[in-house]
């Protein structure tokens, strides 16, 4: 019963712990910005806490680094269930510019199971709010993968095999498909 209430209340009271595992600070400040008067995340019950033990959500900023991997992992393990991980910014989502550098492991999903991605470099405060709202189910997801495939080649290929006729009238057999 309590578990159910907790699940329900989680939407109205998210305590976040922000862990910068090696990013540039830009996303941290935007996360802080979300708490400030113009955006005021507290109206959705979002609160920044200092200890992972108190947190429901871990906001990861920055790529997974070799030097902070252990600490990040431990912070995640210290959080009580149910727990969520949000990756904020290009570094956390995909490793950033330095995704393959010698001291970087890559995106945080290499270390922790990420539940929600908020891309941007840094994401606008609105984007972060949107992300949290989307994770809470208040708004719908807007992006979907785009796949473009040319079904047919746009330019006719004049292959001698497809040329029919002789003399003045030469018909390219597959022309209608072009």
């Amino acid at each position, binding site marked *: 019963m*309590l*578990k*159910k*209430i*907790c*699940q329900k*209340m*989680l939407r*109205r*009271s998210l*305590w976040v712990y922000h862990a910068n595992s090696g990013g540039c600070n830009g996303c941290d400040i935007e996360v802080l910005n979300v708490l*400030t*008067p*113009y955006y*005021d995340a*507290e*109206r*959705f*019950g979002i*609160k920044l*806490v*200092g*200890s992972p*033990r*108190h947190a*429901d959500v871990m906001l990861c900023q920055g790529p997974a680094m070799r030097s902070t991997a252990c600490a990040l992992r431990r912070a995640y393990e*210290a*959080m*009580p*269930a*149910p727990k969520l991980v949000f990756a904020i910014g290009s570094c956390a989502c995909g490793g950033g510019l330095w995704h393959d550098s010698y001291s970087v492991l890559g995106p945080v999903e290499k270390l922790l199971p990420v539940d929600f991605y908020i891309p941007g470099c840094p994401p606008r405060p609105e984007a972060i709010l949107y992300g949290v709202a989307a994770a809470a189910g208040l708004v719908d997801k807007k992006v979907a993968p785009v796949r473009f495939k040319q079904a047919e080649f746009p330019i006719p290929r004049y292959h001698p095999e497809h040329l029919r006729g002789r003399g003045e009238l030469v018909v390219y057999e597959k022309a209608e498909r072009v």
Partner: protein
Amino acid sequence: MELLSILGCVANAGLVLALAPLGEGVLRKVTARLQSRQGPPLLQPYFDLLKLLGKEDIESGETPHVQRGAGYLALATVLTVACLLPLGFRTPLTGAGDVILLVYLITLAGICTLLAGWGAGSTYALLGSSREMMTMMALEPLFAVSLVAGAVQTGSCQVDRVLDGSVYGAGGIPWSGLILLATMALAFPAFVQRLPFDVAEAETEIMEGALIEYSGPKLALFKYAQMVKLLVYSALFVALFVPWGSGWAFPFGWLVFWGKVLAMVLLVTAVAASHARYRIDQALRHFARLLVLAVGALVLACYGL
């Protein structure tokens, strides 16, 4: 009589438990308004507590028994204090305890935080504990002095007598009472562990100090205790130092009482929102100064002023 006081206790405790998160909600909402933002819904603390209750409880500390005990004890202590207070009506536990008991209960509330820190055993928790201990040692005499001043005025150590008679028992201008009112108002945020005296938990310094290791339901207990503390201590303060108007007939006296409690919460909010946190040594110095004042007031009270 017995049954009535038990019912009264239950009613008091229930009332306090039900209203405490609302007080916290008011505090957060008003703080937000002072900071030019919208702020959380008034019921936010209820959501927070409910959520915390359902979360996983990680027992990671050195001594889980102490940790668990500390949580229950913290809430139980403040609820006991609530039973000794007139929350708009008469005190439920008339004659069951004296002011010494009250002083001890208040101390016990602090000791819970101490135990919590010790039970957790991590560096920051211990730092929080040691700071809590220092604050407690400075605050306890202050509170004791104010109660003793009341006892001196009324010539009784009974809780309800002291509270009823308050510290304004003397005729004429109650100098000692007014001085005590001022000192206690200045120290009040420390009793309820709010800014600028929340050195023991200082989120940005030692990360909520003693509570750092707690999660889920246990954290909820502590948070709840803290909210109840805000309400109960406000009520205690009102009963002791601002007794005017409480004696009126039912709806008015009751309304006036809770209005005054609300005013206390707002006072705490305003102070917290406009002050930077004191350092532990600065806080202690502040308390020491107040203690000198309070003792002066006690002397005045002895002379019937």
